[in-house]
């Protein structure tokens, strides 16, 4: 875990050093996208080969869906209460 954060910090440092050559940014973002796909493929391969997961996928998917209903509702209600009831913000009303 600590290694992961070190690599993030190294990346930010390196990014700050090369930031003036801003033309590289689109390539970095593109590469990041590809690496994410690569990771998802490896994660998928491991999941597909794992019999305990493939036999549980219906329950895992349903659990994930229900968890998401709770997290999204929680976030939306918390922000709604804070900004529209407490602050009565006009920022979001336009």
């Amino acid at each position, binding site marked *: *875990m600590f*290694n*992961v954060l070190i*690599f*993030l910090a*190294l*990346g*930010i*440092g*390196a*990014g*700050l*050093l*090369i*930031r003036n050559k*801003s033309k590289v*940014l689109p390539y*970095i973002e593109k590469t*990041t996208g590809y*690496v*994410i*796909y690569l*990771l*998802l*493929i*490896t*994660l*998928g*391969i*491991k*999941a*597909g*080969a*794992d019999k*305990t997961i*493939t036999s549980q996928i219906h329950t*895992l998917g349903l*659990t*994930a*869906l229900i*968890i*998401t209903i*709770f*997290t*999204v509702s*929680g*976030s*939306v*209600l*918390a*922000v*709604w209460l*804070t900004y*529209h009831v407490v*602050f009565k*913000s006009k*920022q*979001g*009303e*336009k």
Partner: protein
Amino acid sequence: MLILLAFAGGVVFGLLHFFPVTGLLGDIGTYILYLLMFLVGLGIGCDSHVWKQLRQINFRVLLIPFTSLIGTALGISVYQLIFSFPHRADLYAIGAGMGYYSLSSIIISKVAGESVGIIALLANIIREVATLVLAPLLAKYFGKLAPIAAGGATTSDTTLPVIMQYCGKENIVSSIVNGVVLTLLVPVIIAFIYGL
């Protein structure tokens, strides 16, 4: 959609036992994660827009990601009350993914095992897809900040176009700040939850 295809494609290869899974692939996964973290950092570091916008933000804008995080934690607590998940820390870590499915699911599967990692992946992909699909409804009934709250860490990239369309240009900075702050916080919070 490509996201689901990449994962589904991997699952098919896995089912066919196309690649050796033990040892080698696990290690490759770790190195790909390091590379991804470096790239994410590189992207944040050299994007002068991000740093400029971070300097312009005020208290009210900065409050959105933290309110959203607290809301997610409360939602998880209610879920726990109703369904009682085996390990409470895993559940909070899944929620703390905030839609950042790639990173959160990989960290979580390293710590808590493959099946919890899969739930984290699916739950956070569903969060992103739900934001994309529900943005107009959320904006209509819960205000223009609701899609940003729902989108979590994704509001600075994948869900930004939808948010721009349904929440107006005046909320673009809020959306980007929310996404950037949460993207930075997700790995830190998951690490904190597991006491790493």
